[in-house]
């Protein structure tokens, strides 16, 4: 508990970290409650339209203006937060769910199975991730879950590599030897002693990656192989306004801004997490004696 207070103190003292924390918190909260605070749910979900109001510029009534079907963009961007949250968290969670066991088994159990797992990992790593995601997304077809799946399949090898490297060094630490000497089962050693001590860099990376996942999902939608319209996904919104950028800048601008701010927020928070996980800080923590 006192560690949490210390962490918050460090974040509080650094305005950049604080900005990251505020943006991400806001993003998560809005993502969670968005469907319940919509003023024009029909517009947000793309079920209604009003041709008379098409492409009206930002005003008090329509804060972000309207799109080519006259739908309120503010409501659409607001609801888009939820999709981005689902995609960002979904992609990272699914990638971790595949990457961590693979890396853990390859690093701790080793042997032929371990080597085989790392070969598969290396094969995936040979492709540029976004290119792989595009290929997979095109194969799977459009849809929210397909987008998450395509991105996760191009990402998990990075986590399995990271975990593998960590586990390979942690497994040689004296406390693992000590656990063996005590006669603790290999499975327990793996999950209780090795895994928790190998997660630090993965947590840092995962924080940064939520932002990148949102960005890449938007890219897929922009290319027309991600989430299908009329879903108010940010990338899709940007793409729909792209042709109209000279007549109605706001259609692409506000969802684009949402993407930029969110990705920036996760990057800043990732930096903060990196510092909080820094072993030097751990050392300082460990200077506290009973």
């Amino acid at each position: 508990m006192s560690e949490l207070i210390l962490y918050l103190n460090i974040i509080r003292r650094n305005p950049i970290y604080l900005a990251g924390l505020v943006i991400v918190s806001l993003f998560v909260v809005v993502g969670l409650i968005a469907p319940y605070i919509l003023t024009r749910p029909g517009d947000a979900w793309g079920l209604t339209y009003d041709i008379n109001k098409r492409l009206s510029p930002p005003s008090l009534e329509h804060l972000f203006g309207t799109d080519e079907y006259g739908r309120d963009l503010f409501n659409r961007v607001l609801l888009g937060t939820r999709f981005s949250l689902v995609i960002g968290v979904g992609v990272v969670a699914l990638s971790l769910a595949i990457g961590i066991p693979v890396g853990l088994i390859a690093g701790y159990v080793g042997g032929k199975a371990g080597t085989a797992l790392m070969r598969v990992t290396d094969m995936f790593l040979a492709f540029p991730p976004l290119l792989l995601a595009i290929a997979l997304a095109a194969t799977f077809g459009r849809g929210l879950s397909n987008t998450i799946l395509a991105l996760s399949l191009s990402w998990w090898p990075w986590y399995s590599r990271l975990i593998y490297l960590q586990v390979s060094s942690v497994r040689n630490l004296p406390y693992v030897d000590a656990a063996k000497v005590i006669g603790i089962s290999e499975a327990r050693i793996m999950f209780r002693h090795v895994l928790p001590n190998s997660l630090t860099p993965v947590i840092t990376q995962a924080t940064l990656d939520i932002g990148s996942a949102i960005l890449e999902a938007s890219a897929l939608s922009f290319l027309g192989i991600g989430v299908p319209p009329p879903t108010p996904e940010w990338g899709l919104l940007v793409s729909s306004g792209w042709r109209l950028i000279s007549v109605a800048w706001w259609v692409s601008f506000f969802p684009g801004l949402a993407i930029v701010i969110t990705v920036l927020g996760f990057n800043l928070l990732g930096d903060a997490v990196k510092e909080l996980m820094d072993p030097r800080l751990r050392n300082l923590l460990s200077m506290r004696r009973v």
Partner: protein
Amino acid sequence: MRSLLEINELTKYFPVKTGLFGRVVGYVRAVDGVSFKISEGAVFALVGESGSGKTTILRCVLRLTEPTSGEILIEGRNVTQLRGKDLKWFRRNVQAVFQNPYLSLNPRMKVKDLIAEPLKTHTNVSKNEVYRKVAEVLALVGLPEIVANQYPPNLSGGQAQRVAIARALSIEPKLLLLDEPTSALDVSVQAQILNLLVELKEKLGLTYLLVTHDLSVVRYMSDYIAVMYLGKIMEIGTAEEIFSEPKHPYTLALLSSVPELNPQAKKLKKKIILPGEPPSPMNPPSGCRLSNRCPYATKECVTEEPKLTKITETHYVRCLRHEDLSSLITREA
């Protein structure tokens, strides 16, 4: 007294492989034909510098490394062949304390969970019982109960090493292996831990195998000593024999290289500084392993490999010139 631990002709060779294709190009002879016995209730010290093989022996005894050949017997049972229930028996009876408690205790587990782990693995005690037992062993090593809720990084070095000792002793083993148990600690803390180890040995009737490079620690608590160099025992005997009548030039060099506190004793002491550094155990020198650094080496020392020679019932030395040694030293002085 019967032997609790007996080691016969133990060898451990580590293959050295070339980078790209993993072809074996040679072997590091980390332990090369080592034999000794530890009787119940004794403190046996393996002394040597890095590369002497002392830690490899300890790892073999703990089954953290598979020996290349030789036998390790605990109460007559061959350790390397134990399986299932017998292996569990072995784990319960042979425990270890390592050098750096901050590294040998999982930093993300509370002290009480660390100590409960061996209890849960080896005994059928209930949950309440476990934590009562944890408090009991903490008291045994002189720690207050509040330590149970701490994480190891928040403890001082001495406290953390006490936790490591408590953890090893919680399941009441017969043999405790001590791997440089105090070399990561401050002097004043070292004294506390050494006293504690001696007390616990008497109280619980433990047997210790101590592995260290620190001769003053050895002197303080050992009954028998084996001095190792490049994988072989150079000299073995009772503590009194090794410290009062060392017969091997390497033992002499080790003894004289310990910085002496008393300035008057220092003036009387003859210093033997060995030139150079231990050669790689991958290709040890021919003949006696110390021959290229020994100030008393002759031609025979380079060509002939000395055997462990009996001096008394308990004292053995591996040196061709051990009979001349005392006269050689007095002549120089």
